[in-house]
Every structure is written in structure tokens, then in C-alpha cells.
């Protein structure tokens, strides 16, 4: 079963993480940024579960952490999207660059 070395998982997770960071930095729309953050959190979860599987398979902590991360991601998505919707209704836009009210 362990035909795949641990480093493959970590590399894939790194790729996912980098893409997520890129998205968070470059997307215009706030919802797009939230999606990218979900990607980053998923990369973290892959790492957690891979470490659990390869380094401490008898200690369930890795999965506990991953589930807590999922929970926090869901809470973040719920509040974040509600925030985006609220902003969108006030200002008629979800484009982050247009939300520069503090600058004016």
C-alpha cells in the first residue's frame, strides 16, 4: 500500500497551497478569494492526513486536527460569504479593489 512516498503527497499539497496563495493574491472578486483560501486549507489537510498515515498511524491526532480544520474552514466560509453578501448589498460590488471606502 505504501507504494507512494510521503514526499509525493507533500509536493502535491505544496502545489495546491501555492495555487491557493496565487488565487488569494490575484482574484478580483471576494468570493474568488474565499475559494482560493479553501484550496489552501485543503492543502493543509492533505499534509495533516499524510503525516498521520506515514509518521504516526496509531495516533489519531492527525485526523482530529484535519476535522477541526474542516470545521473552521466551514465557519470561515459561512461568515466570510455572509460578509461578502452584506458588503455586496451595501455597495453593489464584490470586487475587492472597489471597496476602498477607507481610502477616501
Amino acid at each position, binding site marked *: *500500500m505504501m507504494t507512494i512516498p510521503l514526499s509525493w503527497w507533500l509536493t502535491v499539497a505544496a502545489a495546491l497551497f501555492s495555487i491557493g496563495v496565487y488565487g488569494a493574491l490575484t482574484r478580483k472578486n471576494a468570493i474568488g478569494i474565499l475559494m482560493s483560501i479553501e484550496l489552501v486549507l485543503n492543502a493543509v489537510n492533505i499534509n495533516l492526513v499524510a503525516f498521520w498515515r506515514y509518521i504516526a498511524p496509531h495516533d489519531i491526532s492527525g485526523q482530529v486536527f484535519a*476535522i477541526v480544520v*474542516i*470545521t473552521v474552514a*466551514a465557519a470561515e*466560509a*459561512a461568515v466570510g*460569504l*455572509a460578509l461578502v*453578501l452584506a458588503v455586496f448589498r451595501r455597495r453593489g460590488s464584490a470586487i475587492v479593489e472597489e471597496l476602498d471606502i477607507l481610502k477616501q
Partner: protein
Amino acid sequence: MLKEFEFVGLLGAITFTIPFVTLLLAWLLRPKKPNPAKQETYESGVQTIGDTWVRFKAQYYIYALIFVVFDIEAVFLFPFAVALNQLPLYALVWAIVFILLLFDGLLYAWRKGALHWT
């Protein structure tokens, strides 16, 4: 664990092809004579006005919101359910506290009228 998902994978591989086969078969059999009138959006014969993707009321979003929260509650309750007989009695009390805390959120939504369909 992998063994347990083998069947899911095999079934998934077959099931994945079924829609393609169906579509291919239909593509071979069916006539294809599109014209602009046919391809118009069907709204009971009335011409469509404006954009389809208009905004809908936030009520739908609130239902999805409460659903997400309870979905995650279930994620925590399933391990608890399976491990119930390996747990001391006080653990049950904590699980009940867990459920009641979330119930609290639902009650709040209810009181604030967020569950009310307007």
C-alpha cells in the same frame, strides 16, 4: 481501508461511462434541426425580459448556512455514536452539551425569524 473502497472505485468507473454511452447513443439516433425559435429560453411563451441571473432573496442562503452548521455537527456526532459504548457516562453528558449548544444556534435563528419564509 483501500480494500473497502475498491468496490466504490469499480462501480464509479462503470457508472462514469453510463451517461457518456447514453448521450452517444442518443446523439446517433436523434434528429438535429436547431433553429433560433427552438433555442429560445422557455418561459411559457412569454419573451424573456432582462437577465436570468437576477438576485434572489437571502432566505435561501440562510437555509444553506444553517445546513452547513448541522452538517458539521453530524460529522462530529458519527464518531461519537460509534464510540458510545467505549465512553464513560460523563462523555455522554458532554455530547449532549455539544448538541444543545448547536440547538441554541437554531433557536436563535428561529427567534430572530430567520427561519420565517417571507
